[in-house]
């Protein structure tokens, strides 16, 4: 599956990271990977030929230099005949190789189109300045899951992402699974994914979108259809007001600035302009990949978002130490 590694001594030795086009962990990624191997193979061969031709030319030229025998001034056309034929051969060979590569591209395109034709699962991903809103579509409207900065996919099935943007141009790119597609405001584009290996991958915005373009990542988890179903049902469960220790944090969340932008299913807070926090504690990272999810990181993020992700749109809400602790305790319950 990682044949490329064999041909490519130069490329990283086979072991693809969680965000690498070498991963080829989906049908689309594998198809593109194979096409890349073909192109790379041809490129290496052609490059070798050119270097050999150049080396011979340099050596031959050096010998002419020494023996003053190379062609002079404006050589007679007859002496140039073999080179003219060589030129024609070279040009037609180049054209032929390119035509072959074009055919390979066309075949891959067709295979990609076929692979993405029908998709049982539809997901709408909306790019915002510097986070992802993810909505799992469902014929029954009440089963639509709204989450943020994470994407769960069932392995072995095709999922179609419909890509939109709320502000500037972003680009959804999960290197391990497939190529990227831009998210342009006023337009819709789509991306089909058919993962073939379970695991967690990292996607990142691939179109410069402003100050925090670097911290706009998405955690992609490919799991078995059963696990996916379990995760999906868990996401549908609302989080009503908790009792006990978290109640204080809940009160802060509802009555202070949080509810103006964030929403938590099952509570009055229904802000739409920031990530949905109904199951925030179940996610792997905070603030679109800026920090791994942990209690301290939650506290660090909430207490001063500008320190972690300078320039993002979350304000520094004035909280005392105890209020911060209570709020983080509440957020931890939102599994």
């Amino acid at each position, binding site marked *: 599956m990682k044949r490329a590694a064999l041909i490519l001594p*130069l490329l*990283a030795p086979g072991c693809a990271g969680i965000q690498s086009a070498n991963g080829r962990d989906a049908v689309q990624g594998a198809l593109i990977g194979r096409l890349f191997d073909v192109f790379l193979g041809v490129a290496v061969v052609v490059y070798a030929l*050119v270097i050999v031709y150049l080396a011979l030319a340099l050596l031959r030229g050096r010998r002419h*230099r020494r023996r003053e025998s190379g062609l002079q001034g404006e050589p007679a056309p007859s002496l140039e005949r073999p080179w003219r034929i060589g030129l024609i051969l070279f040009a037609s060979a180049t054209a032929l190789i390119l035509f072959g590569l074009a055919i390979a591209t*066309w075949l891959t395109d067709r295979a990609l*189109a076929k692979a993405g034709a029908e998709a049982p699962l539809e997901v709408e991903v909306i790019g915002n300045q510097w986070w992802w809103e993810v909505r799992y579509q469902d014929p029954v409207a009440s089963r639509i899951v709204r989450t943020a900065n994470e994407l769960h996919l069932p392995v072995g099935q095709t999922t179609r992402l419909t890509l939109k943007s709320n502000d500037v141009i972003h680009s959804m790119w999960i290197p391990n699974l497939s190529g990227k597609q*831009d998210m342009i405001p006023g*337009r819709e584009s789509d991306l089909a994914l058919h993962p073939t290996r379970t695991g967690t991958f990292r996607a990142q915005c691939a179109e410069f979108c402003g100050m925090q373009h670097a911290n706009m990542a998405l955690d992609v988890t490919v799991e078995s259809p059963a696990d996916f179903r379990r995760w999906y049902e868990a996401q549908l469960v609302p989080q009503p007001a908790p009792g006990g220790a978290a109640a204080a944090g809940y009160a802060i969340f509802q009555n202070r600035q949080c509810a103006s932008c964030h929403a938590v299913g099952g509570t009055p807070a229904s802000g739409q302009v920031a990530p949905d926090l109904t199951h925030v504690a179940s996610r792997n990272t905070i603030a679109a990949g800026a920090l791994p999810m942990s209690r301290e990181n939650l506290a660090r993020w909430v207490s001063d978002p500008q320190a972690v992700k300078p320039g993002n749109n979350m304000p520094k809400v004035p909280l005392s130490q105890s209020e911060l602790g209570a709020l983080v305790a509440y957020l931890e319950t939102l599994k």
Partner: protein
Amino acid sequence: MSEERPRDDYLRDGPNLTGAELDAVLDETWRDGPGLMGWIRSVDHKSIGKRYLVTAIVFLGLGGILAALMRIQLSGPGHHFLGPDRYNQIFTMHGTTMMFLFAVPVMDAMAIYLVPLMIGTRNTAFPRLNAFSYWMYLAGGTLLWVAFVLNVGPDAGWFSYVPLAGPEYSPGKRVDIWAQMVTFTEVAALAVAVSLTATILKKRAPGMTLARMPIFVWAILIVSLMVILSMPSVALASSMLLADRLVGTQFYNSYELGDPLLWQHLFWFFGHPEVYIIFLPAAGFVSEIVQAYTGRQTFGYTTIVLALCATGLLAFGLWVHHMFATGLPRLGYAFYTAASMAVSIPAGIQIFCWIATIWTGRPRFMVPMLWVVGFIVTFVIGGLTGVMLASVPIDLQVHDTYFVVAHFHYVLIGGAVFPLLGAITYWFPKFTGRMMSEGLGKVSFWLSFLSFQGTFFPMHIVGIEGMPRRVYTYPAGMGWDTLNLISSISAFVFAGSVILFVANMLLSMRGGEQAPDNPWGAPGLEWKAASPPRPYNHAHIPIVLDNTPLWNAEQPVAYGLRVEDRELVLTTVLDARPDLREPSPEPTAWPLIAALATTVMFISSIFTPWAVAIGSVPIGVALIAWFWPKGPPHPDPVIE
């Protein structure tokens, strides 16, 4: 009108007026004025060319410093050396400076300086337009860098995609300054292109038919036509962006059925020809250098010229390969894949011809030839990765990643800067009259070549490993850390090698050994003129019999040009038969004043749209004064 020829008692060059006496008179006629005023009023293509070259190299240095800052920030994960806002300004300034303020102007510089010499004339056509273009270029560059220093540097990328660069998501005047800078530089480039096209078509030495023109002059002709056809596209796009940002038009507002993709189409319709505008002159340099150092005319002259034309033509048909990820219809993409692949054929053919020339010639491996070999080795890698990027599925994986950054550095630095450095070394004796040091030249070549590979080859791998472009930082443990460190370190070595090259230039300018007129025994007409050339280039306008004039025994010259006034001979376009005597415009300061007026209007139009109306009055006055017909300096005697 009586048939009798008017009395003709002007002093003309000829057999009886030649040698030192002629030089003195011509010197007096064609010299720039003395001191600062003379420098400002100069319309001599050589002094304008030198100014362009020096300014471009200064901007190369500034752009290089920015690149160094970026590499420090990216040398490891999570560095805090640069904040996101500062980093975004720096990478935008790096791209913009290198593309708009270095690459195109430096090729213009070489063209303005060399073309008149190479085609055997005394000045370019429209020399005042050339002067105006330099002042506009200088004003644009100053505007951008003064803004950058004042924290008003653009921060939306060198191609400022809307809506990020639009009125809502780019507050303040940053993107306005960028868009106005684009207006400045493309006015300058258009001016140079018009003047060079006219020069090449009408001012060639008698006998220099199109088939006998030097290949570099062919390249410049094609590049000038490309500039004339592509620059208006970005002019329109940047004016529409300014209108959207300042007076609230709806061009790119998707809500009012405008379209952000309109910007991308218009920009890349200019963008891709732009990169060929940068590469083709370099291809011209290589042809000249290879011809000089192998002692034979470049193999396949007509093939190379046709390849240059093909590249120029195809360059306009493949801009959508920058937009493969925007979700346009797949069938449309197929055409652009084909065009993007096809454009590599002419480049391949040229490389084949150059290597054939080396193979069959008697190459001397001086420093320029080293740069040519370095160019071939590097550019072919860039060309091959370019073919990969032409294929849509692969491009969807590597678009906007460091793989693309590697690709365009290979084709721009490898493809244009290497030949440029070779060309500067090759023509340095002609510019300054002194040779550059071979030793220092070799060291700086090998240092540049190796550190270049060390800097940019790892970027291919980092790009495939998933590192996107324009990120001010990246998390640890993604497999990118060591590769980025290698890139950063060798980037500094590369910077060092460029500084070494410039040092070699500065030292050799005074300390280098004296250079004869034709140190390399090259065939071009420019080597017939003195080193550095006299203000009038050639004492007598040469007559050209074949492609390699200086390699012929007899080199005839034409007589009969007036000497007390600036006069040139115009020849017909195809076969360069002498046609007219043309007075060449006198030095004047009006181009500078017109440029200043235009600068004031452009900059103040960022702050109030009224400036466009009010500002155009001084421009009108300056242009009227510039073009005010003064009649011939010594009027022909009126026949009584």
